[in-house]
């Protein structure tokens, strides 16, 4: 047990390190901050809700930097794209927070927040999974035909549509190999920022699909670039929460230590897989997060009588951290086994890269 002087509670420090580790793996791999997983976990450990939110946002900024350093080494960051999006993201986050305040004023914040989360995440889950299954099939077909497998395969036609938007200035993102109007990038930043600010999360699970399906990046670039955005939005969130008095810095440090190990593993793991594997994880994460938000929404809509749904949602949210980590670890193990010529399931072979190191 550690005595957190600012939070005013005693909590087991190793659980914070473990939470940081698991969320680090998931965050480094699919490019999310993991706010929707960490905040409930901290509340379970005894931190007050506002403090959980502040600690989470601050740790996201630190973890984002750790992951960014590794993704930079792997060449997964398009700095032009990231920096073009920053201002839009910040503006969006601020507007999202104000929007949330407006709904709070109307007394609708819980319903509005949970409904928006559920609708958005479910839509993204369905589209991401549908597109990823198609991409997976195409990869499998290429493998059968004996063709060289690309690192990335996407089947969505949406990026071409958005890249045709002719309004100047047109930005050339060399690493991402994308030429697109600056306004599209800014718009993606603003919209994902609004949703992130409104939902109180880093916004990675919205921004990564947006970068893939609107801007047209490869999934690896989307993950790395999104982590840069998360550093900025996390830092902004950290500043706001710190001023409000919602941050216990030692709790943040414990989480960052865990996140350092987890984020390394998650970031390095991206080198062992092709784009669709990351998108599969993203879609599973979205499905579980939809369930995690759907259960409390059902409780609110039923007049708060089904408290078991609230508790079940915490269990689902914490369970998904473990599930996603094990899935990512399995993918890396499969890549390692495949490289040594050992047996791996047929379905996973097209998703793996065997010469990462």
């Amino acid at each position, binding site marked *: 047990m550690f005595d957190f002087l600012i939070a005013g509670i005693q909590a087991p420090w190793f659980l914070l390190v473990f939470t940081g580790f698991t969320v680090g793996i998931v965050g480094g791999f699919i490019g999310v901050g993991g706010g929707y997983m960490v905040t409930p976990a901290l509340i379970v450990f005894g931190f007050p809700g506002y403090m959980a939110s502040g600690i989470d946002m601050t740790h996201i900024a630190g973890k984002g930097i750790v992951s960014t350093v590794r993704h930079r080494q792997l*060449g997964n960051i398009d700095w032009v794209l990231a920096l073009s999006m920053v201002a839009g993201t910040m503006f969006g986050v601020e507007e999202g927070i104000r929007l949330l305040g407006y709904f709070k004023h109307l007394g609708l914040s819980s319903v509005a927040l949970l409904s928006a989360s559920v609708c958005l995440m479910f839509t993204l889950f369905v589209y991401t999974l549908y597109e990823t299954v198609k991409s997976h099939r195409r990869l499998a077909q290429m493998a059968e035909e004996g063709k060289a497998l*690309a690192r990335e395969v996407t089947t969505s036609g949406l990026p071409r549509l958005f890249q045709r938007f002719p309004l100047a200035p047109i930005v050339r993102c060399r690493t991402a190999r994308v030429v697109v109007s600056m306004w599209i990038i800014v718009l993606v930043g603003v919209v994902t920022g609004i949703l992130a600010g409104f939902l109180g999360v880093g916004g990675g699970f919205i921004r990564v699909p947006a970068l893939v399906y609107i801007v047209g990046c490869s999934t690896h670039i989307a993950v790395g670039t999104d982590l840069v955005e998360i550093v900025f939005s996390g830092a902004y969130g950290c500043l706001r929460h710190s001023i409000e008095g919602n941050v216990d*810095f030692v709790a943040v440090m414990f989480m*960052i230590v865990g996140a*350092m190990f987890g984020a390394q593993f998650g970031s390095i793991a991206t*080198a062992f897989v092709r784009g669709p594997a990351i998108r599969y994880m993203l879609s599973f994460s979205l499905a579980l997060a939809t369930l995690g938000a759907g259960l409390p929404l059902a409780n609110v809509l039923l007049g708060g009588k089904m408290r078991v749904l609230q508790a079940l949602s915490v269990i689902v949210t914490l369970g998904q951290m473990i599930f996603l980590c094990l899935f990512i670890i399995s993918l890396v193990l499969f890549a390692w086994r495949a490289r040594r010529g050992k047996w791996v399931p047929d379905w996973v072979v097209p998703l793996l890269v065997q010469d990462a*190191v």
Partner: protein
Amino acid sequence: MTRRERTRSIIKFLFWAAASAGAFWYAVHFYTSGRMVHWYYYQAKADGYAVNARAFMDATPERPAALTVGEFSSLDGLQARAVKKGEVLPEHATGVISLETLAEGRRASLEGGTLTVKVPWELKQAKGFKYKDTFTHKNIKTNPLSGLWNIVMVGLIGVCLGYLAEGFTDMLGLKFKKIDHSVGH
């Protein structure tokens, strides 16, 4: 891996390990010395009485806690000090019981030089795992510098740990190749 590369990676690892250790030591020292805590519980947001909410962890209406009111520069246990809005809080203060709360008299009351608190420092809510603070963190304002300090420290620690990990894998000879995004996309 050449000898020169190995030496460079060892130096890189040791440098960032030392930097990380330094950053952690500084942050922990700042926390345990009480400076960070004082920055957190910095000013009163309302007129009232500064208290150390830990002192009445288990107070109940049946067994209320009696706090002595005085001009204390540091709150030691069951002590309280009158503060005005914007005034810097005494050491070890973790909340302010506002004059409105005292006027209500439901959760705390003032009689003579004794402040009586009838509720614990936090209440466990019936639903789920949530806690609701009663007086801790209440009516306090954090030093605005703490936000800047947190950002700088979290950035510093993130950079140090990021490069420490990179130095470690370099030292082990695990040089990760840049992913070629031009192929097939």
